[in-house]
């Protein structure tokens, strides 16, 4: 008898994840939904192949949520094909600030013109939800970059893949969600908070691999904000993101393979410069737009974003230090780190070259542009105190006084509040759903009771017109 070939779960998972990322690059929300579904399947396949599978399978089951959100968006766009044209008649300018009231309010709201507008906004929100959740920008998925993925060798790197998919969703489907009313504002506020929390969390983690995962989240949120606010064209935002997040991903992969980007003083310095420059190129136009967009200064938004960017830049400069050599014989690739050097140069050039493409269009005022550069430049100030940070092998110590502890306490406070709010909503939903659960006991008398109840209701309702 011919038996179908059995493919090992790990390989099947890798195939699914690779196909998922490729599909996410394609335009079209169907491909995005399929891509995220494949990514969720990859994590499920990897988790079920682990020896202690119960916990990882439960831990990564949330990945079906963003996939479902995208399927919902996909179904709504297919059911309502005219969705794509509906936002065109909305007059007015873009929002003046992330927290500002959108300027299309004086015009009649879309809901008043078209009863389907609510569903169209729902479709846009579903796309946004999927992207944000994959980027750890929503309360339910916030803690995932702290965890390692369900593959032993690649686990710490695998988690960093999820914010990447989140950005790809938001970037490739930008035209579906950025033009919907209120969605852009919701996205900006959520991403701003996520960027700040990611920077704080990266700062509190002592291990460089954990910090790098959070820095990837940080880069993805900044790049998504560029897309949401339309600061630069989508392709440029993607290139800026590729330079910054790509550099962190390479550094993370290298960390897991003998700290390859931190071998030797010269290579370490090159990577330090490359990462800082790439992150600066990503953050600079955003700081300029958020702080000084619309011809006036927005102190609150600028301060929040500036502090996040400052912490992230400082962290990179302080943490990327030469790794202590503990080996008697260095690896050949460490002696001539050609690949690492080429990658560093690519990262070094990607951001500035992309920015140079749109320089004149984005930054119209040179003085303001210089002010927007301050947070990144300030990060160099305490760098002379940079030293080798020991890699901890034990769990994080409890919070105490100090900047790191302040950051940790802030992050924990926000996540605890978020979790309690999500828990409260879940309790209410359960309470509301409890009668439905008890609706049917299987008793034949109940059949008749329902029938009589509905009959009486159908007689009474017309009389209450």
């Amino acid at each position, binding site marked *: 008898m011919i038996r179908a070939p059995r493919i090992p779960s790990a390989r099947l998972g890798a195939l699914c994840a690779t196909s998922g990322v490729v599909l996410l690059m394609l335009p079209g929300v169907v491909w995005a939904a399929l891509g995220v579904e494949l990514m969720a399947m990859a994590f499920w396949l990897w988790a079920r192949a682990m020896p202690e599978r119960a916990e990882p399978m439960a831990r990564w089951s949330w990945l079906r949520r963003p996939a479902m959100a995208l399927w919902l968006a996909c179904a709504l766009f297919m059911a309502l094909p005219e969705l794509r044209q509906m936002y065109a008649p909305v007059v007015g300018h873009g929002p003046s600030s992330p927290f500002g009231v959108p300027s299309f309010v004086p015009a009649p709201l879309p809901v008043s013109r078209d009863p389907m507008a609510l569903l169209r906004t729902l479709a846009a929100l579903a796309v946004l939800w999927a992207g944000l959740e994959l980027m750890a920008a929503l309360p339910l998925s916030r803690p995932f970059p702290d965890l390692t993925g369900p593959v032993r060798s690649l686990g710490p790197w695998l988690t960093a893949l999820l914010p990447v998919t989140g950005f790809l969703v938001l970037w490739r489907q930008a035209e579906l969600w950025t033009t919907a009313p209120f969605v852009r504002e919701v996205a900006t506020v959520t991403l701003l908070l996520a960027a700040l929390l990611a920077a704080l969390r990266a700062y509190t983690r002592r291990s460089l691999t954990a910090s790098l995962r959070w820095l990837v989240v940080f880069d993805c949120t900044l790049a998504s904000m560029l897309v949401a606010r339309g600061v630069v064209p989508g392709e440029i935002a993607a290139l800026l993101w590729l330079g910054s997040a790509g550099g962190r991903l390479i550094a993370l992969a290298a960390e897991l393979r003998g700290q390859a980007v931190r071998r030797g003083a010269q290579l370490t310095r090159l990577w330090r410069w490359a990462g800082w420059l790439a992150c600066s190129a990503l953050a600079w136009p955003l700081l300029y737009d958020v702080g000084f967009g619309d011809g006036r200064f927005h102190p609150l938004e600028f301060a929040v974003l500036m502090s996040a960017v400052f912490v992230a830049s400082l962290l990179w400069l302080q943490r990327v230090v030469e790794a202590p050599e503990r080996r008697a014989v260095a690896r050949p690739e460490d002696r001539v780190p050609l690949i690492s050097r080429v990658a560093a140069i690519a990262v070094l050039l990607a951001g500035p070259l992309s920015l140079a493409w749109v320089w004149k269009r984005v930054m119209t005022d040179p003085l303001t542009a210089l002010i927007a550069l301050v947070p990144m430049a300030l990060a160099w100030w305490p760098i002379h105190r940079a030293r080798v940070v020991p890699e901890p092998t034990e769990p994080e110590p409890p919070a105490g006084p100090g900047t790191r502890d302040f950051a940790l306490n802030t992050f924990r406070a926000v996540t605890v509040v978020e979790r309690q709010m999500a828990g409260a909503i879940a309790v209410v939903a359960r309470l509301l759903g409890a009668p*439905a*659960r008890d609706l049917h006991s299987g008793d034949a008398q109940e059949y008749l009771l329902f029938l009589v109840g509905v009959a009486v209701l159908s007689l009474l309702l017309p009389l209450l017109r």
Partner: protein
Amino acid sequence: MNDVVMPSLAFLAPLAALVTATLVRRAHARASEPQPWFDAGIATALLVPLAVLVSWPDVLTPARAAVAAGLCVALLANDPRDLPQTEVALKLLWVLLAAFALSWAGDALLALASGSARPREQWPALALALDPYSLWSAAASLSMLAGLVMLGGAPFHFWAGDLFHGARAHLAPFVAVTLQVAGASWLMHHLTGVEAFPAAERLVRAQLTLAASVALVGGAATLANPARSERRVGALVSLQGGLVLASFAAVPWAAPFAAQGGLAAWGGHLLLAASGASLLSRFLPVGGSVSDGASVLFRRHPWTGAAGAYAMLSLAGAPGTPGAQLWLGLARTLADHRHPGLLFAVALAWLASFGVAAAEIRRAFGAPESTPLPEREVPGALRAALWTACGALLVLLWAWW
């Protein structure tokens, strides 16, 4: 090409479902049956009238719908040795008799008020406003009740769960789909010509919107609750009744799912999907978590399991299945007729059904185990039945694409 394929699909789908039922009945033959294939053939022959009704719903007048319901109950009560199935028959008889009694009372009142027993003549007669509102509104409301019960949308979703749990695997899908098609025909017959009386149309639309909302939201809320997979399949089938109600709420005088071939195509798909899903559900573990081991079917024959999973996904309307075309068709109808509330309820129900079906399939595949494979294989007839349902659904997908 489509002119030939589309009409024949209405007959091909029930035919494939009959083949599936024969295979299932053959595999479930009792040891005391000396000629299992012959007995399976006889059992299938008894299902032919139901298959004809599903493929040709136009013949179902209200009286014939009642006869069809009676036939379903008789088929369920046919084997006195099968106690759970007999219990289902009794429960259905209990509720259907009462529902028909109430609806016939409504029909009689309508005839009294309008002076005609034909719906096409009743509505224009009532539009003359010679009768009090309370009389004809009460009559119209009551007359639709049997249709609501037979469609099986919440709060009448219990019979579908009981049916798939208690009745035999080859019989449950036929009974469920015949009752639902009969229910849809009942409503369609009673709503014929209602557009001639705007006040009645408004009333009927409001009531059907309420019924569809309850069926979709209530069905979605109860979908994840049952511990047994068979009941979950029943809940998915009851959601299909909610879809028909939503379609009537949007356009009370038109046949639902016209783009896919009408009620016959909907019934044919439902028959195939419910047959595959119902059979698959018998192989799924009761309770348990996603990290438990796979069931025997999925350990020994994972590709056959995947074929069964396709039927369940189609029943849930997952993307890439013919079931999704039905959900999308309904969503387009609701969008065209500006029903955002119902469209939202449909979206909610679709998310719940797709999510539950996907979770069920993950649970079915379970986690890889290092223990040796079970010695006994799943009977070939059952595997062939799953593949038949899956293949026929793929043909439907190709035809509807």
